[in-house]
C-alpha cells in the first residue's frame, strides 16, 4: 500500500523549508486513490474499512452469541450489555416492549455498524471514519426512511398514511393547509436529508479537526518549530479522545432518531 492510497497529504513539507507552505486539510483529505480495480470498479480504503466493519460486527456477535449459555462467558457478557443497551435504552423507550421487539435486531445492527464505522477514525493505520463519506450515511438513512414510509402506509392505509405524514388534524382550522405543506416537506424531504447529513457532517468535521492538528504537528516538526509541534500533538491526542466520545454519541443519535421515526409511523395521532 503506497502513501497515496493511505494518506491524503504531502509528507515532504516542513516549517522553514523554502518553496513549500502549510497545506490545510480539505476535501482532498477525503479522496483516496483506489487500492485496486476490479473491471473498472475502483475499490478504495473507505470501502475496505466498511467491509471490515461488517466483518467485525458479525464476528463479535457470532463469537458472543454463537454458543449462548445460561451463565454467560466474558464475551457473551459484553455482547449482552451492548444488546441490552440498545434494546432497553433506545427501542423500548421509543416503541414500547410489545411493538418494539420486532425492530430490536435492526436497531442493534445499525448502532454497532455505525459505531464501528465511526471508530475507524481513531484506530491506528485505518484512521478514517467511513461515515465521513456521505454515501454510507445516505445508504443507512435510506434503509430507515424506506422502513418508516412503508410502515406508515401499511399501518394507516393510503389516505391515513398521507394524513399521518402531513400531520392532518381538523381542529387546526385555517392553519391546516400551512401545516400540511410544512409537515410534508419536513417529514418526507428534510428528515432523511438531516438524518444522513448529521452523521456525515459530524464525522467529517471530526476527521478534519484531527487531520488538521496531525498535519500541523508534522509540518511544524523542524528546528524551533518543535516547541509548537508539541502543543499541536497534545491537541491531536485531546481531539482523539473527544472524537471517541462523539462517535458513540452520533451512533446513539442515529439509532435514537431511527426509533423515533418508526414510532412516528406507528403512532395513532401524529
Amino acid at each position, binding site marked *: 500500500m503506497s502513501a497515496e492510497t493511505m494518506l491524503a497529504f504531502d509528507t515532504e513539507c516542513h516549517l522553514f523549508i523554502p518553496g513549500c507552505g502549510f497545506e490545510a486539510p*480539505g*476535501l482532498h483529505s477525503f479522496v483516496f486513490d483506489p487500492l485496486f480495480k476490479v473491471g473498472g470498479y475502483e475499490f478504495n480504503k473507505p470501502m475496505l474499512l466498511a467491509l471490515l466493519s461488517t466483518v467485525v460486527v458479525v464476528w463479535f456477535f457470532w463469537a458472543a452469541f454463537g454458543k449462548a449459555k445460561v451463565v454467560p462467558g466474558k464475551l457473551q457478557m459484553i455482547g449482552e450489555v451492548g444488546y441490552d443497551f440498545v434494546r432497553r435504552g433506545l427501542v423500548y423507550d421509543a416503541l414500547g416492549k410489545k411493538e418494539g421487539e420486532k425492530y430490536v435486531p435492526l436497531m442493534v445492527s445499525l448502532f454497532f455498524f455505525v459505531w464501528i464505522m465511526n471508530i475507524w477514525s481513531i484506530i491506528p493505520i485505518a484512521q478514517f471514519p467511513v461515515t465521513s463519506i456521505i454515501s454510507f450515511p445516505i445508504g443507512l438513512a435510506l434503509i430507515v426512511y424506506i422502513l418508516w414510509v412503508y410502515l406508515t402506509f401499511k399501518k394507516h392505509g393510503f389516505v391515513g398514511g398521507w394524513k399521518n405524514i402531513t400531520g392532518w388534524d381538523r381542529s387546526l382550522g385555517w392553519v391546516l393547509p400551512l401545516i400540511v405543506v410544512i409537515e410534508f416537506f419536513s417529514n418526507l424531504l428534510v428528515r432523511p436529508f438531516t438524518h444522513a*447529513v448529521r452523521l*456525515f*457532517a*459530524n464525522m467529517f468535521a471530526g476527521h478534519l479537526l484531527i487531520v488538521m492538528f496531525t498535519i500541523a504537528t508534522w509540518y511544524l516538526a523542524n528546528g524551533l518549530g518543535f516547541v509548537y509541534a508539541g502543543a499541536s500533538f497534545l491537541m491531536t491526542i485531546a481531539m482523539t479522545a473527544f472524537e471517541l466520545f462523539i462517535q458513540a*454519541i452520533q451512533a446513539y443519535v442515529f439509532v*435514537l*432518531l431511527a426509533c423515533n421515526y418508526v414510532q412516528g409511523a406507528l403512532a395513532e395521532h401524529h
Partner: protein
Amino acid sequence: MSAALETVNLAAGLTGNIASVGYGLAAIGPGVGVGIIFGNGTQALARQPEAAGLIRTNQIMGFAFCEALALIGIVMGYAYK
C-alpha cells in the same frame, strides 16, 4: 463564488474565502440552542433526578437536532467554494 459576493468582498477589502465568516455566523444560533438545551436539561435533572433516563434521552435528541444546523454550516463552507 458568485459575482455579487465578489463585489461585496472587494468593497469590504476582503481577500480569500468568505466561507469562514459565514460559518462563524452560522454557529451562533446552534451555539445558543445547545446552551439552552443543556442548561434546561441540567435544571430538569436537578429538579427531578428520578426522571434522569428520560431527560437525558430527550436532551441528546434536542442537542442533535440543534447541532445539525451548525454541521450543515461546516459542510456548506466546502460546497460553496
